[in-house]
């Protein structure tokens, strides 16, 4: 099973990641092209075919598809993502302006989700069947089942409109971070909770735990000294996967609800007005983060796993 050495595995994983990124680039280019014609979209309903054709020419969309792709890819290799069709600015800085907001939001949410899901999940697994377990389980299933935008709207209605503790939306300072981060954390923390709970429960019932128990070691020490070491692998990988999920779109829905100026909002706007260069750039950058996180999770998992085997 573990034929590859860790070093070799890392190299393969990075190579695969780059391959996937290349594929993403091709797919997003074709998808953008297949989505429709920006010139037709942006023209009024009663625009004549000549007007649309002229706009297409000005946007450089009248060239054959392969020419556009070769041109695009050639520039891409030089780090040039092209220029926004309407903003008259290069696409990369537009995306880089928005990126820190998405990273701030997702990182904060991830820490909250990790704490929420990790601690509660461990405790729930430890006290399996208890009232705490049943209560958290109920809340978790509820949190995982409802759409995140709904959680967001409820939070806004309560914490921003009713008691006016936080701003409803936008970004005016760190207070603005609280509600969107909590919204994301609730949903993703819920999923972490479920996985960590079952992992903890399973570990607590494994033979080594029973042996420890038979030695007279109290349960909390079994949890602390043995079980947590094993479940921490689950926690780490789950958190990694949840991060991928967030950047794969979950965070973007929350960004829209909270008018958060991140790349989710940027992408939706760019898609709506078919601003291909911006859309492509945003997807590739987000894709790079997803691929990198995936690779890190995989590599981390292998390394932790290997160490555990040695230990």
């Amino acid at each position: 099973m573990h034929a590859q050495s860790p070093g070799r595995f890392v190299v393969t994983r990075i190579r695969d990641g780059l391959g996937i990124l290349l594929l993403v680039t091709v797919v997003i280019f074709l998808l953008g092209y297949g989505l429709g014609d920006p010139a037709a979209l942006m023209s009024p309903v009663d625009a004549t075919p000549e007007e649309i054709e002229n706009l297409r020419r000005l946007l450089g969309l009248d060239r054959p598809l392969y020419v556009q792709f070769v041109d695009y890819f050639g520039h891409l290799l030089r780090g040039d993502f092209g220029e926004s069709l309407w903003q008259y600015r290069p696409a990369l800085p537009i995306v880089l302006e928005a990126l820190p907001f998405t990273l701030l939001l997702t990182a904060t949410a991830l820490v909250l989700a990790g704490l929420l899901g990790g601690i509660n999940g461990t405790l729930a697994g430890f006290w399996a069947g208890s009232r705490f377990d049943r209560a958290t389980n109920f809340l978790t299933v509820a949190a995982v089942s409802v759409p995140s935008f709904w959680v967001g709207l409820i939070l806004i209605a309560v914490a921003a409109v009713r008691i006016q503790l936080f701003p409803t939306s936008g970004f005016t300072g760190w207070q603005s971070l609280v509600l969107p981060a909590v919204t994301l954390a609730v949903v993703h923390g819920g999923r972490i909770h479920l996985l960590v709970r079952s992992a903890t429960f399973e570990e607590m019932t494994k033979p080594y735990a029973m042996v420890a128990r038979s030695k007279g070691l109290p349960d909390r020490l079994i949890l602390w000294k043995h079980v947590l070491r094993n479940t921490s692998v689950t926690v780490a990988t789950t958190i990694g996967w949840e991060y991928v999920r967030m950047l794969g779109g979950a965070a973007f829905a929350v960004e829209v609800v909270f008018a958060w100026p991140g790349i989710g909002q940027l992408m939706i706007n760019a898609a709506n007005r078919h601003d291909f260069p911006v859309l492509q750039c945003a997807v590739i950058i987000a894709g790079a983060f997803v691929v990198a996180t995936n690779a890190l999770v995989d590599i981390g998992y292998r390394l932790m796993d290997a160490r555990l085997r040695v230990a």
Partner: protein
Amino acid sequence: MTGPMGIERRSIQQDTSRGGDVTMPVSKLVLPRAAVLTAVGLAVALVAIGPWLELGGAFAGTATRPVVLTITTEPATLDAQAVNDRHSRVVSGNIFETLLDRDRTGRLVPLLAESYEAVNPTTWRFRLRRGVTFHNGEPFNAEVAAYSVNRIIDRNYRTTRGSYTVGIAGARVVDEYTVEVLTSGVNATLPVQMTSLPMVPPRASQQRDFAWRPVGTGPYRFLGWVRGREMRIAINDNYWGPKPTIREVVVRIIPDKQTELLALRAGEVDVVLDLLPEQIQLAPKHVSHPAPEYSYIAFNTHKREMADPRVRIAMNLAVDKERLARTIYQGHARPNMSQHLSPGMVGFNPNLRPFPYDPARARQLLAEAGFPQGFAVVLNTPIGRYLKGEETSEYVAQQLAQVGIQARVQLHEWTAYQNLGRIPGDRPGAFDLKYGWNSNEWFDGSRIIAHITCRGTSSKICDPRIDELMTRANGTVDQRARDEMYQQVWQILNENPYSIYLLQQNLIYGLSARIQWRNRLDDEVRIADMRLVR
């Protein structure tokens, strides 16, 4: 697997806990303390932070904060000559001005021009207002006006406003404050076109940053734009006209309609555009008024089943428009007068009325036309584009079913809808029925030409009488004569309907308690029209 193991584990717990029972393992006595402490700690922290938050929060509704408007999509550019979407106009419409404008009732009035006349059939002369300067100090004069016209019609200038400048051939300077706009052929709509042709300063508009640092002559000047968040404008103290009362305005981008409303309720914002009818009771205040927006379902008259005008009249009679307006739109719409015009607009025909709701007569007409059993059609509707468009389509389909016509509602993503919708009626793949809104921002009968002439870009009807009248009206400068011709066009379009005439829609704005605003018929959001109360 976990079941038996769980039981096993419980029993071990029981062994290790002295005198404990099944539901109370010993460990529970130790760890909850940590949980309780954490909870208490969090609560204390929240209570401690709470007041400080309120003190430090710049978001709380205070009397001194600027007036805040919200839009759901961020403008791509604020160069008012490049794009013309409603959301960018909320900002650029207060910065830029045009030669002609409309008053609140929709009448054509001079703005940066003082007067205008047609000196010959293809030349319009505008006398310009003196003493107007752009926000950056560039003077406004005939040279600037000519430059502005020539900039927008330049084929190498990237604009989506091409259809607004059709027929304009160029502009030339006569003297410092007189400019002539030339048309290719007779173009009676030129004055109307000048209401959507913003004047731009030659120096600033040649810079690339004009797209995000707009400079105009209007009552507000541009202050700044934080991407993804907001744009700021402030009063132009050197404005040539009456000074507005609101000094500083923030236009925030909130993509979600529900969040917009919640922000209005929280006192963070003052004006929300395009409220939904069901949101009204939750807004502190609102204004709702008829807009030049007409919803319709266009027929493909080239389709065999709908070739006979009697069938199309029957379909108009089959739909209860009163009930549609009352239920789905909660009264914020009314049956339209079987034309895409309102009283006061050029070409409005005062003799036309909504088709009455008369399913019995509809069935009879269908039988006469040879379709006593009705027929099947597809009704095409875009997703999420028009307020209640999907619901309206379902409603109409149900009503058509009552007279035997089986209409299947087909939803399309907007781009697909636009591309397919443009297929002319006599070509394969054209829509049978197409739900849409026609917005007549020109207040003029000519605006609909693409939909009703034989070779119109998205037309699905061909009636030589209409083509003849539309061509003649476009070649006539005399407004009264044009008015009569467009009235005749609509008369014909009722005898030979091109669409099911549905409603004239209202636009609804949500307002905070401190804003007083009666907005204009043309739905331009002019902040100069707003007042702060209290």
